C-alpha cells in the first residue's frame, strides 16, 4: 500500500479551477517530485495535503486514513512532517531546543509546566542532529545560522515526529547552488533509510532529475505526466507546456 494516496483532488477559487482531478501516490522510501509552471496548482495541491486548504472534492489518504478536513496540527499528529519554502524555525531557541520541542510535542508533552526542557529527549535530539550533520552546532541560536544549516535543522525538526510522509516545499529555494545537492542527498538518504515517503516541489531541475525517483507534472491544475525522470524529460507535452516551449518539435 502507498503511504500517501491522492485521488481525484479538486479545488476551485471563485469559480476558477486551480486543481482538478489530480491523483497520485507515493510509496515508502520514494522521492516524488511535483513540477510545473507557475500557477499550475502545485501550491494548492500541497496546501490541501498539509491541511491549510480544504479540497472541494477528492480524497487524501495517509496509510489508508483520510486527512481531509483535518487541521495542519492534526495532520502532523497523523504522521506528516513538513519543511517550508522559506525556512520556519524557532529563531530565539538553540538548534537543540528546536528539535527537543518537536520531540516533546510528538510525545504530547509540550504542555508540561513542571518538567525541565533541558533534559527532555536529549539523546534523541542529538541523534537526529547527528543524522542531518548539525550535532556540532547544537548549542547555536537558530536565528544566527547560515541559511543552508537552517534547512538542515528544519529537516531534523520534521523528522522528530517520526513521519511516514515528508512534505518539502521547494527544499532548496534560497540556497547557494553548491549546497543544494548536498541537502537533497541528505534528505534522500534519510527517507530511504527510514522508509519515509517524500513529496517535494522544486524549481531547480538539477535537483529534480538528480534526486527524484519519480516525477509528476501539473499544468493548469491537471496532472499531465507521470513517470521516471527520463520519461518525463522526454515527454513532448511536458516540453511544450513547461520550459523550452515547443522547441523539441520545432
Amino acid at each position, binding site marked *: 500500500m502507498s503511504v500517501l494516496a491522492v485521488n481525484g483532488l479538486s479545488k476551485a477559487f471563485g469559480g476558477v479551477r486551480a486543481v482538478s482531478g489530480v491523483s497520485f501516490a507515493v510509496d515508502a522510501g520514494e522521492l516524488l517530485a511535483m513540477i510545473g*509552471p*507557475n*500557477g499550475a496548482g502545485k501550491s494548492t495541491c500541497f496546501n490541501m495535503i498539509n491541511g491549510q486548504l480544504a479540497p472541494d472534492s477528492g480524497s487524501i489518504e495517509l496509510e489508508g486514513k483520510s486527512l481531509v478536513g483535518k487541521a495542519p496540527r492534526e495532520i502532523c499528529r497523523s504522521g506528516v512532517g513538513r519543511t517550508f519554502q*522559506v*525556512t520556519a524555525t524557532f529563531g530565539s531557541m538553540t538548534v537543540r531546543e528546536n528539535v527537543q520541542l518537536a520531540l516533546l510535542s510528538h510525545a504530547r508533552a509540550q504542555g508540561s509546566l513542571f518538567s525541565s526542557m533541558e533534559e527532555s529527549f536529549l539523546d534523541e535530539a542529538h541523534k537526529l542532529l547527528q543524522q542531518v550533520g548539525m550535532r556540532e552546532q547544537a548549542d547555536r541560536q537558530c536565528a544566527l545560522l547560515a*541559511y543552508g544549516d*537552517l534547512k538542515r535543522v528544519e529537516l531534523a525538526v520534521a523528522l522528530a515526529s517520526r513521519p511516514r510522509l515528508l512534505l518539502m516545499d*521547494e527544499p532548496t*529555494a*534560497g*540556497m*547557494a*547552488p553548491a549546497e543544494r545537492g548536498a541537502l537533497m542527498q541528505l534528505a534522500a538518504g534519510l527517507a530511504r533509510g527510514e522508509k519515509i515517503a517524500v513529496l517535494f516541489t*522544486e*524549481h*531547480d*531541475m538539477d535537483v529534480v532529475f538528480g534526486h527524484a525517483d519519480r516525477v509528476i507534472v501539473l499544468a493548469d491544475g491537471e496532472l499531465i505526466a507521470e513517470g521516471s525522470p527520463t520519461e*518525463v*524529460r522526454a515527454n513532448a507535452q*511536458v*516540453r511544450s507546456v*513547461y*520550459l*523550452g*516551449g*515547443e*522547441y*523539441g518539435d520545432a
Partner: protein
Amino acid sequence: MLELRRVNAGYGRARILFDLDLELRRGEVAALLGRNGAGKTTALKAAIGLLSSFSGKIIFNNRELNNLQPYQIARLGLAYVPEDRRIFTDLTVMENLEVGRQPRRAGAPHWTPQKLCELFPNLGRMRDRRGGSMSGGEQQMLTIARALMGNPVAILLDEPFEGLAPLIVDRIAKTIRELKREGLSVLLSEQNLRFARLVADRACIIEKGRLCYAGTMAALDADPALRERYLSV
C-alpha cells in the same frame, strides 16, 4: 537604460540572486528568461526598490537606485507591473489609473486615460467597474495601463502573459510592441520561450540567481544546445 551589476538579493536570509548582472538597453524589449524560482521576480523587485539588495549596484539612466525608495524610483520613470498584478480591488478602473498618474515627463510618451482606453478598448468599456470584479486578462491590461499613467521611460513586466487566454496573450504582445514603437524600453520576465519570442529583441537567461546567457533572440533561436541546456526540462 537599466543595469544591474553583481546584485545579491533575497528575502530575509534566503538568498535568491547571486552576483546577478543584467542590462536593459534603450528602446529594446528584453526578455528575462528562466524557470520558476530562478530569480526573475526577485531581480525585477530589486530594480524597482521593493527589495533592498544585499550588495551590488543598480543603475537607471545614469542614476544609482540602490538607496532610493520605490516611489522615488517610479518618479524617475521606471514603471513596474507585478506578476500577481496587484490591482487595487476596491478601486474602480479609473481610480486605479489615477493612483498611477504622474506629471508629464520630457522624452517619454504622455499617457492619459483617454489614450489608454484607445490602447485597451476593454478598459474604456468598464471605467467604473471595481478592479476586484474584472477577469484576469482585464486586470493585466489595467495594471499595464496603470503603470503607463506614470509616463515612464522604461517598464518592467513580470510574467505579463501568465495565466492568460491565447487571445489575450496576442493582445498583450501587440501592446508591448506598440510600447516599443512609442520609444519605451521594456524588460519582461518570462518562463515560456514561445511567449518571449512574440515580443523580445534580446534574451537574458538566468538560472539559480545568475545570468547564464545574454544575446539576441535570433542567436538563441539558432542554438538548440543552449536552449536544451537552460530552458528545456
